[in-house]
């Protein structure tokens, strides 16, 4: 009898032992390849100041015409007169295809890759050979990365993907209604004149090729960190030749760097280098209320500019940004807020030396009942306006700083801080799983006292604003 008991105990303990040592031994899954995608079409009615067809007067922040370091191309020029309004009505479409690979090994390791192709990724800045060489609907890779995850050791993602504070682990951004409210698709209907965009949201900092680590969750906490050596994505160095140009993602100094604090999409030039992100997140329940909070940091260096004299000059601050956000969900309601502060401008770009730090507060709330979701969010921020620093080239030494103050009083100047705010109201009706109907209104305002945000009109227009009302549908599969 004792032997029987011993034997049966041995059998059962072998089962238990196997379960403890390899709890996922059972769940091995052969890799699957899945194809999905999305499509959306919105009609938008837009009112925007400075919405005229005159040649662009250039972007307002930290950038020139974007042609200064391209051989054989003269700097951009400004033409005046011949003004005609742009249409207020438009239809905006976008589509994407995702290929998702996933699998699981017998030891519990899960792995996979995602390749996301998007037809709306090439707007970018108006830059020579950017928009000129590709149609607006040209399909480009948005994100592509591989991941390996282990229940005990966490997940590593490797490739072109948002960082941990660039969208993966943020809290407090309530954007689950309409198209995302002030951070949604209204931006597809406005011109970039006056900088009336709200790119300083999760996902806006870009998918620069990086390595990301994210931990398991323990006691409600998980944390992550990511590193990107430069601002570019994709293969190759981007260098057209052996010159240290802005096209080279590994160039730590190049002529004209002062123009690329903000991404020049298409060629994907930006001075950001060695970007690190770190995030600590907590999630839990208190009395039936779901809570989430994140504290995180984004830092980077920046490429230097090279003067005609051959001297390297540090013209940009590195990114140095802190963000904290909280959100709560209960009974169909979600409310949240996030505050961001540090050295960055409103396109997540590097600020020039001497520029003020940026700060931004986002609050939002939404309510879901059955197939209906309604929500609102609000953003307000204070950023550097036109850069306080005007860098002057030198044939003998480094670039030098000139004052932003105009010689003549009453003329548009770059010394103003920039106050930005926006508000939205939106709603969705879920027609079917994966498909909804949307209506949304967004108001967005930019103010820079003393700086002309609409040079096509007489006088100094210190304020620009946009109102967009959109309706439409989207489907994902």
């Amino acid at each position, binding site marked *: 009898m004792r032997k029987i008991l011993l034997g049966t105990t041995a059998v059962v303990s072998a089962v238990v032992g196997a379960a403890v040592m390899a709890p996922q031994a059972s769940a091995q899954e052969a890799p699957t390849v899945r194809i999905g995608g999305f499509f959306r079409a919105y009609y938008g009615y837009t009112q925007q100041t400075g919405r005229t067809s005159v040649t662009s007067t250039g972007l307002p922040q930290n950038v020139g015409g974007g042609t200064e370091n391209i051989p054989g191309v003269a700097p951009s020029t400004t033409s005046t007169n011949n003004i005609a309004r742009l249409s207020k009505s438009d239809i905006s479409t976008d589509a994407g295809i995702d290929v998702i690979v996933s699998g699981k090994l017998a030891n519990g390791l899960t792995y996979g890759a995602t390749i996301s192709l998007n037809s709306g990724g090439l707007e970018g800045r108006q830059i020579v050979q950017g928009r000129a060489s590709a149609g607006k609907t040209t399909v480009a890779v*948005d994100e592509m990365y591989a991941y390996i995850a282990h*229940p005990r050791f966490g997940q590593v993602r490797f490739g072109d993907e948002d960082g941990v504070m660039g969208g993966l682990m943020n809290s407090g951004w309530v954007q689950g209604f309409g198209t*995302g409210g002030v951070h949604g698709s209204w931006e597809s209907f406005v011109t970039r004149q006056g900088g009336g965009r709200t790119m300083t949201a999760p996902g806006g900092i870009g998918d620069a090729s990086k390595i990301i680590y994210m931990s398991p969750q323990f006691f409600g906490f998980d944390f992550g960190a990511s590193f990107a050596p430069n601002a570019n994505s994709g293969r190759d160095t981007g260098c057209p030749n052996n010159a240290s140009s802005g096209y080279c993602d590994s160039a730590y100094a190049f002529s004209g760097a002062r123009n690329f604090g903000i991404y020049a999409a298409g060629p994907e030039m930006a001075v950001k280098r060695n970007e690190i992100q770190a995030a600590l997140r907590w999630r839990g329940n208190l009395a039936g209320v779901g809570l989430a909070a994140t504290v995180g940091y984004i830092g980077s260096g920046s490429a230097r500019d090279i003067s005609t004299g051959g001297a390297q000059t540090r013209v940009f601050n590195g990114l140095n940004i802190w963000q904290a956000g909280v959100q709560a969900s209960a009974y169909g309601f979600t409310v949240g807020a996030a505050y961001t502060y540090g050295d960055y401008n409103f396109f997540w770009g590097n600020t020039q030396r001497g520029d003020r730090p940026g700060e931004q507060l986002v609050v939002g709330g939404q309510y879901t009942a059955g197939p209906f979701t309604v929500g609102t969010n609000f953003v307000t921020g204070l950023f550097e306006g036109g850069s306080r620093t005007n860098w002057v080239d030198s044939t003998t030494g480094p670039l030098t700083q000139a004052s932003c103050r105009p010689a003549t009083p009453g003329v548009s100047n770059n010394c103003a801080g920039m106050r930005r705010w926006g508000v939205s109201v939106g709603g969705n009706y879920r027609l079917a799983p994966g498909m909804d109907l949307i209506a949304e209104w967004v108001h967005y305002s930019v103010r820079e006292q003393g700086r002309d945000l609409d040079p096509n009109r007489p006088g100094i227009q210190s304020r620009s604003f946009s109102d967009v009302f959109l309706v439409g549908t989207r489907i994902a599969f």
Partner: protein
Amino acid sequence: MTHVSRPILVLGVGLLALAACSGGRQVRNDEYGTDSARELTLRQTGSNSSTSGIVVFGVDRSREAQGGGGTGANAGGGGMTVNAFLWRATLDTLSFMPLASADPFGGVIITDWYSPPQAEGERFKATAYVIGRQLRSDGVRVQIFRQVNRGGAWTDAPASSATNSEMEDRVLARARELRSQSAGR
């Protein structure tokens, strides 16, 4: 940047060590934020990105879980005549023994003889029957056979009936676990 990156690095290494030691919960991919328009739309419209789209290679486990027109506890698995959760759970539970045969249509799993390291003088063989398409507590039966080594020859010996029911309990617990994992996807 340097003055802040150093403490962040130290904190990160510390947290990593803590995570590795304390056996945390694996964070699923859908618990991370995204700016993928497809993913955002699916999340907002109540769909699951890991079960949407078309599987062009491999087994579509989302359809398998819904299998044969059944859902939830009735999920049978595409082409299977027995409950997929019970079937997998039985395979998992008996996986520590060498498998002799498995018939997913008849629902029969037969293992080969296995001698536990703790009791080398005896060996066991298991036969499991998965019954029906429903996930029920009486949907699986396990029979353990036992032999002992007497003078170099294996002879049949009785096995405790409690072993059979204990193995069945293990199968049911594992099936419940698989079912809850599937519901979370």
